[in-house]
C-alpha cells in the first residue's frame, strides 16, 4: 500500500478542464452580495446587500450595519426583483464586497478605507486612489444577473466593470444557469427560491429558454411577512423584539410574558433599522422552526374520513423558539401553515396591505407554466434534472413537498430533484456555478475583453451574453 497507484477508473479520462486566471465572481442578490475567486468552492466575501446611511455617509458591511447608530437608515440598492435600482450605491457596495476581502489592498477598517467617509473630504483621497491602479486591473470579472434583468442594467454593469474598475475582461451570466452548472447540469429546470423571488426557469445547454421564465414574490421575504401576520394573529400576540433592544433577560416558562430589561436610546432607532433587525430574528425563526408539509397532498387535503393532513401535522412534535427577550413558546401546527402558501394560494395567511398570492404564483403552477413554454422533447429531460437552489429552499421539507407535487402533476414522467446537501452549496449555488465557469480553460474565449468593449460599446453585452 505504500505506493498507491491509480487504477483505470480513478484516472482522469480526458483533459483537466480547469485553467484559472484569477477571475473574480460577483453574485449580487437582494439580501447579500457574494464575491470570491473563481475556482474556490465558497465565496470568500459575503456581504449584506443592505447598507446604512447617516446623512451622506454610507455604511457597508455586516459588522457595521447591524450596530445601532443614531439616525442610521437602512437601504438596499437592489430592487425587489433582484435587479439593481440604485447604481451609484450598488457600485460602491460591489466595490466594498470585492476590496474588503479579495484584492490585494486589504481593507484595514471600514472607517478609514475611504468608502465610508464623508464624500466632502473623500474627494481628495479619491484622486489619489485613481492615480493608483484600478480595483480590478488584473482580474477578469464574472458577474451574475437575473434572467429578467433589463438591457439597461446589463449595459450599466459592463460599463462599471470596464470604466470604474478597469477589468481586463468581463462576462455577465444568468444566475439560474450558473446554479445548474453548480449541480453539474447543462440542461435543467432550475427552481431558485431566494429572498425576494422564486423563479422557475428551463435551461438547455447552458442557455435560458426565455419563454419558460416564471417568477413570483412568494420567497423568503414573503415568508417573513407571513410570519409577522402569524405573530399578530396568535393568542397571546407574539412581540417581535430584535436583539439590539434587549439589555438583559431572565428565563421564563413557555407562554409566559417576557421578563427583560430593554435598552433605551436617546435617539430612537429608525424604523428601517428595526425592520432589518427584526428580519434577522425572523430568519432565525425560519431556519429553526418553520417546516413545509412534506406531502403527499396539501396541508388542507383529507387523508381519510373526517381527518385531514392538518391533523397529522398537529400530531407531530412541536418546536420551541425563544425570542431575543426570553419569551418562548411551542409552535405546532402553525409552523406548517406559514410555508403552505407557496404551494397552495388558498392557504396563505392574510397580510394587511398586501395582495394575496394568486394561483399562478405558487411553485407547482410556475413549474407547469415553465414546462409549457418549452419544446415537448425537452420536458422529460428537464423533469429528470430539477435543480433546487436558493437559501429559502433550505426550509425543511421543501424538497419532499416539491417531489410530491411534481409526481402529482406529471405522474407518467420520471422526476429527479437535484438539491445540494450542503447548506453553503444551496445558498451560494449561482456563485459556485460562476466559480466553475470562470475557472474553465474553455471559458477564456468567451470573455468580453476591454478591447471589444472599446470597439463595440456597452451594447456588446447584449450580443455576447445571451
Amino acid at each position, binding site marked *: 500500500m505504500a505506493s498507491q497507484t491509480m487504477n483505470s477508473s480513478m484516472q482522469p479520462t480526458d483533459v483537466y478542464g480547469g485553467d484559472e486566471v484569477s477571475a473574480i465572481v460577483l453574485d449580487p442578490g437582494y439580501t447579500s452580495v457574494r464575491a470570491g475567486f473563481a475556482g474556490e468552492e465558497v465565496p470568500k466575501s459575503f456581504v449584506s446587500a443592505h447598507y446604512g446611511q447617516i446623512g451622506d455617509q454610507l455604511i457597508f458591511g455586516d459588522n457595521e450595519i447591524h450596530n445601532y447608530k443614531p439616525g442610521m437608515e437602512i437601504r438596499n440598492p437592489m430592487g425587489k426583483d433582484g435587479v439593481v435600482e440604485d447604481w451609484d450605491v450598488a457600485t460602491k457596495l460591489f466595490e466594498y464586497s470585492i476590496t474588503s476581502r479579495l484584492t490585494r489592498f486589504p481593507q484595514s477598517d471600514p472607517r478609514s478605507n475611504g468608502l465610508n467617509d464623508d464624500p466632502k473630504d473623500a474627494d481628495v483621497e479619491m484622486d489619489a486612489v485613481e492615480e493608483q491602479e484600478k480595483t480590478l486591473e488584473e482580474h477578469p470579472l464574472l458577474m451574475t444577473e437575473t434572467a429578467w434583468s433589463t438591457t439597461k442594467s446589463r449595459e450599466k454593469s459592463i460599463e462599471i466593470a470596464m470604466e470604474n474598475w478597469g477589468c481586463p475582461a468581463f462576462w455577465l451570466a444568468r444566475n439560474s444557469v450558473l446554479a445548474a452548472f453548480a449541480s453539474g447540469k447543462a440542461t435543467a429546470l432550475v427552481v431558485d427560491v431566494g429572498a425576494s423571488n422564486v423563479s422557475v426557469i428551463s435551461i438547455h445547454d447552458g442557455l435560458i429558454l*426565455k419563454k419558460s421564465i416564471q417568477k413570483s414574490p412568494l420567497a423568503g421575504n414573503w415568508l417573513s411577512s407571513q410570519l409577522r401576520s402569524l405573530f399578530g394573529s396568535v393568542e397571546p400576540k407574539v412581540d417581535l423584539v430584535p436583539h439590539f433592544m434587549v439589555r438583559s433577560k431572565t428565563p421564563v416558562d413557555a407562554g409566559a410574558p417576557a421578563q427583560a430589561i430593554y435598552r433605551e436610546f436617546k435617539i430612537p432607532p429608525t424604523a428601517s433599522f428595526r425592520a432589518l433587525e427584526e428580519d434577522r430574528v425572523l430568519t432565525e425563526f425560519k431556519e429553526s422552526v418553520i417546516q413545509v408539509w412534506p406531502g403527499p397532498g396539501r396541508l388542507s387535503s383529507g387523508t381519510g374520513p373526517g381527518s385531514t393532513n392538518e391533523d397529522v401535522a398537529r400530531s407531530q412534535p412541536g418546536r420551541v423558539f425563544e425570542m431575543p427577550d426570553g419569551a418562548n413558546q411551542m409552535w405546532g401546527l402553525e409552523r406548517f401553515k406559514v410555508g403552505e402558501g407557496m404551494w397552495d394560494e388558498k392557504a396563505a395567511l392574510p397580510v394587511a396591505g398586501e395582495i394575496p398570492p394568486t394561483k399562478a404564483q405558487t411553485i407547482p403552477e410556475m413549474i407547469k407554466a415553465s414546462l409549457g413554454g418549452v*419544446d415537448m422533447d425537452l*420536458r422529460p429531460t428537464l423533469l429528470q434534472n430539477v435543480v433546487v437552489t436558493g437559501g429559502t429552499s433550505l426550509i425543511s421539507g421543501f424538497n419532499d413537498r416539491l417531489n410530491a407535487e411534481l409526481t402529482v402533476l406529471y*405522474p407518467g414522467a420520471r422526476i429527479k430533484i437535484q438539491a445540494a446537501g450542503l447548506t453553503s452549496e444551496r445558498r451560494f449555488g449561482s456563485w459556485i456555478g460562476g466559480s466553475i465557469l470562470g475557472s474553465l480553460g474553455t471559458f*477564456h474565449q468567451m470573455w468580453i475583453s476591454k478591447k471589444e468593449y472599446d470597439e463595440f460599446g456597452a451594447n456588446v453585452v447584449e450580443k455576447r451574453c445571451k
Partner: protein
Amino acid sequence: MTSHDVRDMLDLPGSAAPRPAKKQKLAGPRPNLKGLAREVQSLGGDNPIAIVPEISIFKKRRLASRKPAAKWELKPFKNSAREDDLVLRHWKRKAELPPAPVEENVETAPVEEEMEDSTFAKFNVKVNTPKYDDEQYRSRLESDDWTKDETDYLIGLVQEYDLRWPIIWDRYDYQPPVPALDEGEGSIAIVPATKTRSMEDMKARYYKIAATMMAIHNPVQFMGQAEFSLHEMMNNFDAKQETKRKQFAELNFRRSREEAKEEESLLLELKRILARNDKLTEERKELYARLEAPISSGNLGLYSTSTGLQQLLQQLMTVDKSKKRKSIMGMEGMSPAVVGQGNSQQTSGSGDRRESSNHRESVPSSTAPNNKKGPQAAGNERRKLTEEEERVYGVSHHDRLPGGPQFRHEKIQKPITSKSSVQQQKINNVLAELEVPIRLVMPTADVGVQFEQLLSAINTLLDGRKVADKLTSEIALATEQKRLREEKEKENKEAGGAEGGAEVKVEEEREKSAAPSVKAGSVHKRSASVLSTVSDKSTKRQKK
C-alpha cells in the same frame, strides 16, 4: 492440528523441503525492529505477531523526496480562438532549464519567450451552416412561405446557437423589415403580421436549404456514404409527421399513472401471448414431424412372398430418402425464423406470425409446409443491402423471370406485339403523334416504367375511341331508321288504308333495332352496363 501432526499420521517424513525456507523468511525482519516493537515481537515467541506497527513509512518517503519547492510563475498567455489579443495570466510551473546545455539553448531561448497559446483554443468549434448567394437563392431556394430576409435570419440564428433547436425556437423573434414608405403612394404600408413559426417549420426550412446546398456543392451521385445518408435524412424531413410525433409524445407525457400502468400491463400481456405463440408453433412443428412418419397400415399378407418383401424394402427406402430430404429442407426453412429471432424483437414477431399463419394454411393439406422457404433461405446468405444502399447502387427488384433466354427489349415491346396488327398500327399512330419512338432510345428502368404507363393509357384511349365510334355509328343508324320510318309513315298516310300486315312488320322491325338506342339516355345505360357486367351477372346468379 498442525501440519506436523498430519504428517505423523500419514507416516510422512517429518520435515518437508519448503518449511525451513519459510522459517527463515519470518526470522528475517526481526532484528530490524527496535525498542518497543521488538519487545512486543518477542512476546509472541516463535509465532510472530501479525500486528507490526509500520508508521515510519510516510515519514521516510517525505524525507526521501525532499527537494527544493517547485517554482511557479504567473505567465501571460493568449487564446487563438479569440479574435482580439486578450492576454490573461495563469500560474504555470517554471520550466527548469537543465544546466548543462545552456550554450545550445541560447538560440532557442527567444522562441520560448513567445507568448504561449491556450491549450483550450482547440475546443473552439463552430457548426457549418449552408451559405448561399442571391443567385443560388433565386434559382433553387425560393419559397412561398419564407422571404429571403427571414431565411437569412433563420440561418443566422442557427449559426449563433449551434443548431440547438429548442433555443432557436425559443429566441426566434423575426421582425420583417418595414418597407420603405417613400417608394410611391401605391405601396400601402401593410405591416406583415409576424408569423409564429413552429420548430418543425424552421427545421423543415433549414434542412431543405442545407440539403439543396449540399447537393449543389456535391451532386448526389458523388456523395460518400455518410454524406448521402445525411442528405437523404435532411431531404426526407417531414414536418407534419414530426408535429404528429410531438403531439403523441405530449399525450404520452400527460397520461396519468393508471394509464401508464395499464399500458405496462398490456405490454406484458403481449409478451406473454407472443411467448405462448412461439411455444405453440414449436409444438405444432413437432406434431407435423410425427405425422410424416411412414404409414404402416395395409395387409400384412402382401409381404409374405419374397417379391412382396422386396417391394416393402424399396418402399421404405424411398420413404426414408424423401424424409431425409424433407428434414434437411425443413431445417433450411427454419433458419430464417431462427435468425430473425436473433435480430430484433420486431422482426421476430412478424416472422412468427407469418410462420404460424403458414401452418394454419397447411393444416388441411397436411403436407410438408416448409418447402416454400427454400429460396428465402438461400437469399438470406447473401449480404443484405440496406434501403439506402439499394437506392445508391440502383438495385431494384423484379418479378421472377420466366425460364429460357429472352431479350429485354421484348419485354417492353410485349404490350404492343401482343395486340392484333390493326391495334398495333393504331398504337404506333398514337405514339407517332406524341413523337415518342416505338423503340425507346434509352430504356432505363424509370423510362421503361413510364413507357408502360403510357402504353396502358393509350390502350384505354383506344378502347374509349372504339366505344365512341360504335356509339356514333349506332346513333347514325338509328336516326337513319327514324328518317326512313317517318318517310314510310308519310307514305302510309298518303296511301290511307293500307294493309295491317305491313304495319305489324314495321312494328317488329322497330322493336328489334331501335329499342336499345333511340335515346341518348338509354345509350349511356347500356355502356354503363357493359362496364358492370360482372356485378350484373352476379346479381342474376343470386336470383337463380
